[in-house]
């Protein structure tokens, strides 16, 4: 066994040495043979000569030794490669186009697979993730889109944790928050760039790490779950954050960090692969205390996960959870149209995006198929042009198998070049996706070309190379075999057969392009519809920022005063029309949701009894040009009042219907006094991918006294971003210790609204455009080739008096026939295929006839364009030249 391996390695790694040794061995043999003959009485000269003759053809002997050693295929491969390289050098334009075509397909497929790999395939940083379930409250969305997953309330969590027997333990995590930290940089930056002075913090229950089954790399996690005091103000760092903020200093454990005015002690650092929930840089412990939530019982607060007890099936656990939920009278009353679900953590994370990614995967596969069909066609055309050469080689004794091998090697080399270019492009795409969360994906930071992605794309490239090479190689070598060097007449049948193969490939290409274009068109329509929804604010010329006031937690009065001073200072700036402070800027991240009750009224749908609550000052509506529909906005007198509110139109319609809401009262969980509605404003869109408009309640900002406030500054003229330094300076001047972050023009945040739709749309449009170009090239190639083949026939027609127009039409007819066939097939397929897009569409139905008609028109136009050049060339054929050729 070992000897065999050693022999193999030696011969394969050092083929030259092997050849030399064989040579020496033969020489030795020859010498002994000659010596023997001399010994028998021959003259030295004769002996030598006889020995040589006895050996025979020395090269042939060496060759058969080589073959026996299993090295022959190495030589053949080298020859094939040299042959392929020569072929590529001889037709550089052809090769570049073919390789580029494939490179588009390979880079797209690799990038999408890298995303799929990171999001769906790579294991979660959890021990036995199949045994950890996500305990979800789900609300059926009235708008007909996917059901919304709600956070679980703290009392709910505590009851579940106490009562559910299927789980060994439950843990909860609050949604990850972005908290400003320490001194900040002075530059306004795009909102999506990670800033060093914010940190993504997730509050978790102390037993969180125990439930997921991960221990810190350094230090320790939190203390016992049931001792809130032992866990107060403790923090655990993520590996990446430890690297970045503490330069991987082991001394970080034990140091303190200030968050939101509180001081936390760092107790540990998690291992590198533990990033869960996604994006978390810092975990802080939070011991949910039922007492705290008495006042605001159904504020949704936690993502709950639970580890199944050994031997308990997920189905059993879900059944128990359902029973528990149904038995909970309070929950049933308030959360009437909600239900519970318990997918595994993985399913919980990827459920929304899995479909999207599968769709993208399918699209990119179609793109790769189009590219492969195109290259196959190009190789067929080229093979046909080389038929003569191949026939000669066959006649001289080359085996058909060998010819096929050479042609496939050529295709493989093209695919290899394409793979190199494609991987470089894919690496850039993957880097971009990992850095900027364009697709709003979970686990996006893990997107990279890791070995499994590289392997998959190399396998794909090889498969594409073999497929693209095999069909033309078989077809060409068969034709050459049949017709060998016979005259032209016998070539026609073969030519026609290959012609129909080429035509059907192009029909497929056109059909697949139609499908991609139809999908892209529908997403384009969706995006258009989403953008047409009125945002409710005038975003142009507005700068927004978030400000950390940097004041002690208990000093509410100081905060209120600081916020007021900042607003006044900003309004005094030149080039500022208006400015306002609020707890939530439009399209900003932080949204506070609260349940509400309306005295004396049974609400129509108790589960949706909630409202967004924002504290705003009296300049908020004027700065954003939010229209006051009824009643009035806030005035100077309202500033300190805790009993007035302005609601948006959505809220007025939802809770009061046709009644006049002005003067009516309602209570919001968390606010002691009932609020009287003094005005109704136009509904603005919130931070949501959905076109839904949430009911919102605005209360005077002074009633809030928040640590973090938002700024809205309307400039008189010019780019609002240019005002950023002045605004920053004014804020720091007015309230020492405060610092602004996330300065951005409001209209840049608006684009953020439909960012996911926009990103998917852009990807699909990109795919569709590439498909269109590739298909156009394919069409052109096929028609141009058939014109070249028919040069003689066309020449004769022209000589017999055919008008150039007739010739042009007959050529163009072929292109149009092929493209119409493709459009018909593709259109039929699109009606069915775009159905998988349904969950991504808004305002347009799958198989929308307008979109399909437009797509068909585009493709026919492209087909006309692609046939026009060859048609013109055909009409310009000189009959004399044409007849003389061949």
């Amino acid at each position, binding site marked *: 066994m070992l000897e065999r391996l050693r022999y193999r390695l030696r011969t394969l790694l050092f083929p030259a040495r092997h050849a030399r040794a064989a040579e020496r061995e033969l020489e030795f043999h020859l*010498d002994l043979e000659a010596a023997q003959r001399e010994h028998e009485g021959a003259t030295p000269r004769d002996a030598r000569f006889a020995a040589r003759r006895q050996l025979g053809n020395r090269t042939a*002997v060496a060759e058969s030794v080589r073959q026996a050693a299993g090295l022959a295929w190495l030589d053949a491969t080298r020859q094939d490669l040299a042959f392929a390289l020569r072929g590529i050098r001889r037709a550089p334009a052809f090769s570049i186009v073919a390789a580029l075509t494939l490179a588009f397909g390979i880079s797209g497929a690799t990038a999408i697979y890298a995303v799929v790999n990171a999001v769906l395939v790579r294991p979660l940083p959890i021990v036995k993730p199949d045994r950890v379930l996500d305990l979800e409250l789900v609300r059926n969305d009235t708008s007909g889109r996917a059901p919304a997953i709600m956070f679980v309330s703290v009392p709910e969590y505590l009851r579940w944790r106490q009562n559910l027997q299927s789980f060994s333990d439950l843990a909860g995590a609050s949604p990850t928050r972005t908290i400003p930290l320490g001194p900040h940089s002075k530059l306004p930056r795009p909102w999506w760039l990670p800033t060093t002075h914010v940190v993504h913090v997730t509050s978790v229950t102390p037993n969180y790490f125990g439930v997921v089954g991960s221990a810190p790399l350094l230090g320790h996690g939190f203390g016992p779950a049931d001792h809130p005091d032992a866990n107060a103000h403790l923090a655990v760092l993520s590996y990446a954050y430890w690297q970045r903020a503490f330069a991987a200093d082991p001394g970080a454990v034990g140091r303190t960090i200030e968050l939101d005015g509180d001081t936390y002690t760092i107790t540990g650092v998690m291992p590198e692969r533990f990033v869960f929930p996604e994006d978390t840089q810092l975990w802080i412990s939070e011991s949910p205390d039922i007492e705290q939530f008495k006042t605001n019982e159904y504020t949704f607060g936690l993502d709950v996960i639970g580890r199944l007890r050994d031997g308990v099936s997920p189905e059993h656990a879900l059944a128990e959870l359902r029973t528990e939920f149904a038995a909970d009278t309070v929950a049933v009353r308030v959360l009437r149209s909600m239900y519970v679900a318990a997918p595994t953590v993985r399913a919980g994370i990827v459920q929304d995006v899995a479909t999207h990614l599968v769709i993208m995967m399918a699209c990119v596969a179609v793109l790769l198929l189009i590219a492969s069909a195109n290259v196959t066609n190009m190789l067929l055309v080229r093979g046909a042009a080389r038929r003569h050469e191949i026939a000669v080689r066959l006649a001289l004794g080359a085996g058909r198998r060998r010819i096929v091998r050479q042609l496939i090697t050529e295709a493989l080399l093209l695919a290899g070049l394409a793979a190199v270019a494609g991987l470089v492009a894919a690496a850039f795409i993957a880097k971009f996706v990992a850095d900027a969360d364009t697709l709003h994906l979970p686990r996006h930071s893990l997107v990279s070309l890791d070995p499994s992605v590289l392997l998959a794309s190399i396998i794909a490239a090889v498969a594409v190379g073999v497929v693209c090479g095999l069909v033309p190689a078989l077809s060409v070598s068969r034709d050459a075999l049949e017709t060998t060097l016979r005259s032209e007449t016998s070539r026609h049948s073969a030519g026609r057969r290959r012609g129909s193969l080429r035509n059907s490939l192009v029909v497929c290409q056109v059909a697949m392009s139609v499908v991609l274009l139809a999908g892209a068109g529908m997403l384009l329509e969706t995006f258009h519809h989403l953008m047409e929804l009125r945002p409710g604010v005038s975003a142009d010329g507005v700068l927004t920022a978030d400000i950390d006031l940097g004041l002690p937690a208990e000093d509410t009065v100081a905060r209120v005063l600081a916020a007021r001073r900042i607003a006044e200072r900003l309004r005094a700036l030149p080039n500022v029309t208006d400015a306002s402070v609020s707890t939530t800027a439009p399209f900003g991240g932080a949204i506070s949701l609260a349940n509400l009750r309306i005295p004396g009224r049974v609400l129509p749908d108790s589960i949706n009894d909630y409202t967004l609550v924002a504290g705003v000052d009296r300049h908020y509506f004027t700065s954003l040009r939010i229209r006051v529909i009824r009643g009035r906005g806030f005035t100077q007198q309202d500033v300190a009042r805790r009993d007035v509110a302005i609601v948006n139109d959505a809220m007025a319609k939802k809770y009061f219907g046709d009644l006049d809401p002005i003067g009516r009262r309602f209570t919001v969980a968390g606010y002691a006094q009932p609020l009287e509605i003094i005005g109704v404003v136009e509904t603005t869109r919130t931070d949501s991918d959905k076109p839904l408009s949430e009911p919102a309640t605005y209360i005077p900002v002074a009633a809030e006294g928040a640590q973090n406030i938002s700024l809205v500054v309307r400039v008189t003229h010019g780019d609002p971003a240019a005002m950023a330094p002045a605004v920053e300076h004014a804020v720091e001047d007015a309230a020492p210790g405060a610092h602004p972050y996330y300065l951005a023009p409001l209209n840049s945040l608006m684009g953020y609204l439909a960012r996911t739709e926009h990103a998917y749309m852009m990807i699909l449009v990109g795919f569709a455009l590439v498909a269109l170009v590739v298909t156009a090239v394919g069409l052109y190639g096929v028609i141009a080739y058939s014109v070249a083949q028919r040069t003689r026939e066309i020449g004769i027609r022209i000589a017999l008096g055919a008008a150039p127009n007739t010739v042009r039409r007959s050529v163009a007819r072929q292109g149009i026939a092929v493209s119409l066939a493709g459009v018909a097939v593709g259109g039929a397929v699109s009606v069915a295929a775009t159905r998988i897009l349904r969950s991504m569409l808004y305002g347009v139905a799958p198989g929308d006839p307008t979109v399909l008609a437009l797509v068909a028109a585009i493709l026919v136009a492209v087909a006309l364009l692609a046939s026009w050049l060859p048609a013109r060339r055909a009409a310009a054929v000189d009959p004399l030249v044409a007849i003389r050729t061949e």
Partner: protein
Amino acid sequence: MTKHESQSDIVPGTLEMLILKTLTLGAMHGYSIAQHIARLSKDVLRVEQGSLYPALERVQKKGWATSKWRASPTGRQARYYTITAAGRKHLGETSSAYQRTALAISRIMRRA
């Protein structure tokens, strides 16, 4: 290539067997293997270099023999082949199979 009347080609596959059998006598270089086979077969079986050396490669590839360069009695470097344990095992199997076949053939030929 012309061949002497009394010489004959070796049935494919048996050359390896003959080589291995020869090597059971000890390590040998290619020439002496050929000599040995020719001598024992009374010059009936002549092994050409064109079949000997490829066969030696095949035998090594299968792991039945290994080779090493070392000084021959005349002082010149020669490649010496040695049979391996796997080679002996294979030789045992093929030679018994061969003997059965040879016996069967000779019985038929005797009757005819």
